[in-house]
């Protein structure tokens, strides 16, 4: 399973499919979470999606201690210590034999290889809901374009079936692949995280020139009529990283200058800490484990910066943890 198939267009590695997703673009959607991401954002909320390899995960609360997994592992890399399940991750090749034997699903393999045609057929099962809602399929992750051949093939297959598509991307992808993907994309959910080059490097492990180049490409292709993709910019609000006044204003200024008339929505996605346990299960440290959630007044303040940044204020939306409370505040203020 560890080697990438020579024919990248026919199969890909995904985490899972989330159906009736209401947060990943317009309408009712099915979201395909891809494995693998070129960035390594310090706050990453889907740590299981970074690696290009399938990863084994153990849920202590589900384990009944039958140790079926120990015997099932062909490379003998599973043992049990005082804290429970122990995995020699260096030697585990993600074959999944232990997962198959585990009676309680305490072991899960993150990442499964799927064929484009089988996946597209599975996704088409919710066509009735896509059509009734103006929704469709969203490719997310991880970074879908890290497996660009597979992602493009999937987008094309979905379009052939008449299913609307969305691409949720961090933007750090080869321009050629981005361009090809956009030609089969109806909604582009594009992350702009940090405008400052150095800071971007520090927090995500990569520079941002390519990302900015790609978002401009989206505009160019739109203007040339080569893609009809609606554009949503998404900015995760991470305390001390992205959610500074300087950064939000800078992103806003960039949008106002370059994406005016193309931007449909700028989503500010509030920080959340639901992935804390996920880090623990993967045996990883998380720098934000103790970071508190935003309260409504903080979100209010941040969105205020965005609204004043030069972007059409009606395009700014806040999603996430405190949103329900936030909307109420908004309603109260308007009334």
């Amino acid at each position, binding site marked *: 399973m560890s080697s990438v198939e020579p024919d990248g267009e026919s199969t890909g590695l995904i985490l899972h499919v*989330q*159906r*009736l997703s*209401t947060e990943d673009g317009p309408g*009712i959607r099915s979201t395909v979470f891809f494995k693998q991401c070129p960035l390594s954002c310090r706050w990453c909320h889907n740590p299981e999606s970074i690696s290009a390899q399938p990863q084994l995960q153990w849920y202590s609360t589900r384990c009944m201690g039958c140790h079926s997994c120990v015997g099932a592992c062909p490379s003998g890399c599973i043992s049990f210590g005082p804290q429970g399940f122990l995995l020699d991750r260096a030697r585990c090749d993600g074959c999944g034999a232990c997962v198959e034997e585990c009676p309680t699903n305490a072991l899960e393999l993150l990442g499964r290889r799927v064929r484009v045609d089988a996946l597209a057929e599975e996704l088409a099962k919710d066509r*009735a809901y896509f059509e009734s*809602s103006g929704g469709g399929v969203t490719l997310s992750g991880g970074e879908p374009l890290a497996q660009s051949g597979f992602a493009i093939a999937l987008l094309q297959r979905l379009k052939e079936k008449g299913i609307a598509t969305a691409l949720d991307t961090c933007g750090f992808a080869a321009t050629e692949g981005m361009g090809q993907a956009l030609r089969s994309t109806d909604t582009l959910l594009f992350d702009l995280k940090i405008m400052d080059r150095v800071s971007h490097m520090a927090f995500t492990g990569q520079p941002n020139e390519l990302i900015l180049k790609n978002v401009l490409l989206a505009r160019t292709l739109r203007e040339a009529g080569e893609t009809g993709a609606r554009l949503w910019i998404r900015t995760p609000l991470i305390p001390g990283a992205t959610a500074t006044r300087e950064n939000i204003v800078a992103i806003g200024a960039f949008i106002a200058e370059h994406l005016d008339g193309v931007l449909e929505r700028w989503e500010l996605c509030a920080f959340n800490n639901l992935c804390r346990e996920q880090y623990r299960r993967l045996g990883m440290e998380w720098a934000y484990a103790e970071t508190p*959630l935003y309260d409504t007044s903080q979100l209010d303040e941040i969105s205020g910066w965005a609204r004043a940044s030069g972007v059409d204020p009606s395009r700014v939306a806040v999603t996430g*943890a405190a949103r329900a409370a936030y909307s109420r505040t908004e309603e109260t203020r308007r009334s």
Partner: protein
Amino acid sequence: MAGHVAATSRAPSERPHAIKTPSNLSPRITWLRDYYFSGTARAWNNEFTSWTTGTPWDFQFNELTFYIVPETYTFFPTFRAAFRQTARRVDLDPHFWSWSLPERRAWFLRRVMTRSLPCEILPGDLIAGARFNVMTSTCLTSKEAAEFDRLVVGKAGTRQAVKWAHDHGYGNAGATSGHLIPDYPRVLKHGWRGITQEIEQALEALPAREKQGRRAAQLRGMLIAAGTARELAARYEAVCENLVAETKDPTRARELRQMARNLSLVPWGPSSTFWEAVQSLWLTHMLVMSDENYPGPGLSFGRIDQYLLPYWQRSLAQGMDRELGKEILKCFWIHCNTAYDAMIRTGAHQGITAGYGQLLSLSGRGPDGHDMTNDLTWAILEVIDEMSPILEPKPNVRLHRGSPDALLEKLVDMIASSQGSPFLLNFDERSEAGMLLEARLAGLEKQITPANVADYASVGCLENTMPGNDRSGTVDVNLNLLKAVELTLTGGYDLVPFADPMTGKTDAVTRRGSGTGDPTGFRTFEQFWAAYAAQNRFITKLLVDLYESSESVRARFSPTPYLSCLVRGCIEKGLDVTQGGAEIGFVTIEAVTFATTVDSLLAVKHLVYDRAACTMEELVAALKDNWVGHEKLQALAANKAPKYGRDDNEADAMARRVMELWTSETWRHTTRSTHRQFRPGMLSWNYWVSDGFVLAASPDGRPKGKFLSNALCPSNGADTNGPTANANSVGKVLAGEAEKDGVRFATENLLPNGGSHTISFNPTMARDPEHRAKLAAFLRGYARNGGSALQINMIDAEMLRDAQAHPESYRHLLVRVTGYNAYFTTVGKELQDEIIARESHALR
């Protein structure tokens, strides 16, 4: 980044009470509503009163109608004795005992309602017709009573048989009251005078040799019954006039004078105004409950926003204030709730249970597919919204491909504001497909046609019937499909012999099921399936026979001549509705434990045949031990075997196979005494909870004592792919494979009665207009891909707390807080607390 919404199936009863409060109520309605909810503190109520012919053998309580409520079995002797002891004597006509039974019953009820029961009108009430909960004499002669008792309480009687079937996990069956839509529009149009004339004509038309026969007796009984409402209205008219004389309030005096005038005209004559129509409807309706001695058991109104519309429009045109129209409806709403007064001093909540179901249907499409939503639909929705929370009448809103956006928007708003659906949603295309199927299979293509099928409506909980001419025994037979799996695993024996909890006596080990042999000899799953099919045939026949025993007794001894006047077919045939007089008269077998059965068969196939994780001996041993000591095998069954409800085509094919098998068995049967064809449905009422303690452990990993699956729903927690996958699975078992890439056009339905389907959503799914629009779109998608009826619950903080305490039951509960999702039970306690706090917050 992820979206998320979670779904599991749950019973509405498990949902904590909604925090919604009533709004926009006038002082009149506020008072009436508060007074109603003051319960036993009220000076007035509608508690059962009992009435006797005065003979030593007389009794009132008819246990047949309670056979489908196993919790009551042990109380039968007490109920019978209590009503008998408290019964007041009615002076009989000197010729009483020379009359036929239908005449005696009709005369007795009429006498009680119009001479014996007090008539009152509550302050401010705009509708007359208060007391109707009565236990009237069975009116049997000593010879008839002895025969009844021999058949019912005798050694080989129905009581023992029904108890045996329940104790051994087969289910239950009994000839039950209500569960139909009387022909109310006919009363509104022609009055009881019109019905009376029809009966007279039918009597005259009888050939001379039949003038003294059974049909003539039945029609004479109905003729007596048809005068009841007129006589009762006259009494209430007098009450109104007395109150006019007493009142000092000129406005109230005007109202009372109008009420008196209404009562002088209806229900004997046709209605012309809206107020008259509602008055006529109520008096006519409440007397059915009197006639059946049962408060509101699925006695339903049908498409009330359609047949009341002409009166509504006429009155509005003549100057009726729209709010007065709603006020009249609100009074009607209060009256419906007084059904619960029957047992007001018994049990919790002052006798208010969810067991009644005076259902009404709103909106829906017309014969040519066009939407029928109208101004009265909206007014009634406003009434529901303003009166809620209130239990009766239970609204059912019909949706279809052409339902207007505004209606869906309103429904979703109401769902969002009450933590769940204040009504049941019915889906026309799927429902009508089922009705047309039953017409084909039962040779009723003249009665149910493409041109009139859109007139269908639901009764009770969600059971589809035609209005005015259809009694289809929609809750009368409740079959536990899972029993057939048990019998297959043992070759026809109970897996664990039944031990009587009172006597401690254990059953002798005898084979009752089909002799399908030792299952350890089955080499393939197909052999196992063949044995299952034989056992399925056996259990179906067993319940059909059980039903026959009470159906035949009811047909002989318990006529309801008043109700028979309101069911088309009874006059023409001169047959009581209890004798199969209705033009359309199915008996519905409601299958219980569907998903548990499907998942059990999938588990047998997976564990024994595909995966070879155990032998058949080991599996049977584990089940006999209730899985104790076999935990690993149990976990494999629960977690590794495929499950229905995930939109997994292979698992759903098994579900479809189970569905085709049991429904085709059902269509093989007809009652012998009344010639009623059996038809399939899926309801489950609360049996899926209580029978979980009766049925042995099942191969799907369920131990005895754990809930079974509910109606059409996947097993609790099995729908790991969310609501769309859940709905698609349901659509597949009803309508087969998709016709076109992912869209299952609603042209087929194996369950004409309909099937109950509940989906729970996270309340955040309705937290703002954007998400409410997505929920509405989900309903439109459901209309194409899902079942015939849907109930929506919102997962609330209470459920999350329960999930925190019992994580094993909520493994697949996804919580969405932002663009990410997590399994609720896998995040730490403190995070769970945060999510609970947020979820509680999000609702306000």
